[in-house]
């Protein structure tokens, strides 16, 4: 652990020396094993929402978030083994948006793996995204860890294929987070069958890390902080002794533990979202475990976005969130209580005023 802590400090020192600001809207994921020679890191960038205005114009605010994340990822020390992009590269799934997003991501050094988001998907059902980035679900192994990428933002065929007169309208209906005309996300039977088959080949003691865009747990259906068949996907993952799910979509820090499965969200590079309890008319189930982020300051474009180191000590995730304009957060897996906990703020009495959402 001390080796890892040192490398974290070195990284931050390097970043500071280069005067790139105090925080990065990306996640550096560090996987630590008993043999420190096996440790490795990867970075995580998510929810860029590149938004085309017209001609050569894109929404500057969202562009800047992704450009900054890419530039700072390239400065990471130690160099990450690969980079994850967690979905919603585009706002409305158009070619200009996906092309512009890919152009910005092209500056990244090293391999990038991609997760499909609903904003990438519902214009052409992932066709152009697929040409740029490859399959919508897949798995790969890296230094003893089995990684799985799912497309968790599919929905009922009836909604996708029969409900909307045009593809553009379908995209707009799904793009609005609070739209009552939307439809719940799901992994779907095809991918669940594939996942079962994929996992059948893996030893139950192998650490498994699953990437999805939507939470593979049910938090608030009204904003699709939700995956309809989450229970069925969880059932496929529970037999493994160390399973972690990392998801985007929610634009905020969330964490939870369900059985053997640790859940952690990553932040957006574009903008933060309210916690569901901020909607007075909503019934929602934010994990009790989650200590929320500070309420965002809208006057500071990049506030409430940030980056994370994720340390997979003994196959469990620890997240080190570095936040813009805020004190950094550490959410570490507690091996006694077998759940992720915030190191500083988990106790009710330790929480600070800006963490109260209402």
């Amino acid at each position, binding site marked *: 652990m001390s080796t890892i802590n040192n490398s974290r400090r070195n990284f931050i020192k390097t970043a500071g020396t280069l005067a790139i600001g105090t925080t990065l809207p990306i996640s550096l994921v560090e996987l630590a094993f008993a043999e420190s020679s096996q440790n490795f890191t990867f970075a995580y960038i998510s929810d860029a929402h590149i*938004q*085309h*205005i017209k001609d050569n*114009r894109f*929404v*500057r*605010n969202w562009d800047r978030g992704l450009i900054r994340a890419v530039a700072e990822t390239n400065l990471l020390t130690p160099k990450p083994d690969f980079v994850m992009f967690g979905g919603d590269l585009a706002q409305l799934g158009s070619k200009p948006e996906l092309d512009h997003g890919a152009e910005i991501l092209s500056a990244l050094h090293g391999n990038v793996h991609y997760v499909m988001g609903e904003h990438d998907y519902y214009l052409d059902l992932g066709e152009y995204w697929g040409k740029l980035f490859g399959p919508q679900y897949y798995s790969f192994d890296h230094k003893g860890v089995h990684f799985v990428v799912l497309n968790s933002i599919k929905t009922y065929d009836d909604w996708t294929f029969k409900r909307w007169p045009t593809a553009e309208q379908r995209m707009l209906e799904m793009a*609005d*987070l*609070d*739209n009552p005309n939307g439809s719940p996300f799901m992994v779907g039977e095809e991918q669940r069958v594939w996942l079962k088959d994929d996992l059948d080949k893996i030893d139950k003691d192998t650490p498994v890390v699953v990437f999805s865009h939507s939470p593979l747990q049910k938090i608030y259906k*009204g*904003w699709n902080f939700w995956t309809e068949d989450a229970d069925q996907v969880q059932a496929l993952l529970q037999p493994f002794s160390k399973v972690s799910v990392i998801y985007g979509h929610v634009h905020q820090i969330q964490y939870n533990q369900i059985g053997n499965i640790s859940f952690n969200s990553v932040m957006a590079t574009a*903008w*933060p*979202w*309210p916690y*569901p309890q*901020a*909607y*007075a*008319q*909503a019934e929602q189930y934010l994990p009790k475990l989650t200590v929320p982020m500070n*309420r*965002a*300051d*809208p*006057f500071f474009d990049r506030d409430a976005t940030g980056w994370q180191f994720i340390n997979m000590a003994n196959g469990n995730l620890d997240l080190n969130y570095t936040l813009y304009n805020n004190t950094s957060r550490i959410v570490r897996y507690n091996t006694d209580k077998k759940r992720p906990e915030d190191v500083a703020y988990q106790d009710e009495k330790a929480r600070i*005023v800006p963490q109260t*959402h*209402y």
Partner: protein
Amino acid sequence: MSTYQKTAMALCLAFASTGSSLADEFTEADVQRWQQQFMAVVGEGRELWTSPKLGTNGVACAQCHPNAANTHPETYPKFQKQLGKVVPLWQMINWCLKNPLEGQPLAADDPKMTALQAYVTYERRGVKLEPGKH
């Protein structure tokens, strides 16, 4: 004729038809009609809230504030630390129109501003008033 003008005319006709009733007496039908008028403006506000047309860059209020969450209308007027003074909600809405939406501010009595505030407040119905709260 705009939606607003039509609405105004409908209101005038409504008043004319009940002109004979005493000022301090109104019926269940009156209450329903007033509620409908209010909800029509709330609906107008929801349209604007989710519309890319309020600004110039296609960004909508709802992109950052689904269901108008994290707007806290029940806490205004309040000291807005970023503006350095006590402001009503509409001034904060104008800040958003000018910055994230890269658009023009609205006059305080612009029907669009009324509609935006009606929608935001409606989504917070049931929450107690706490002016000045942070």
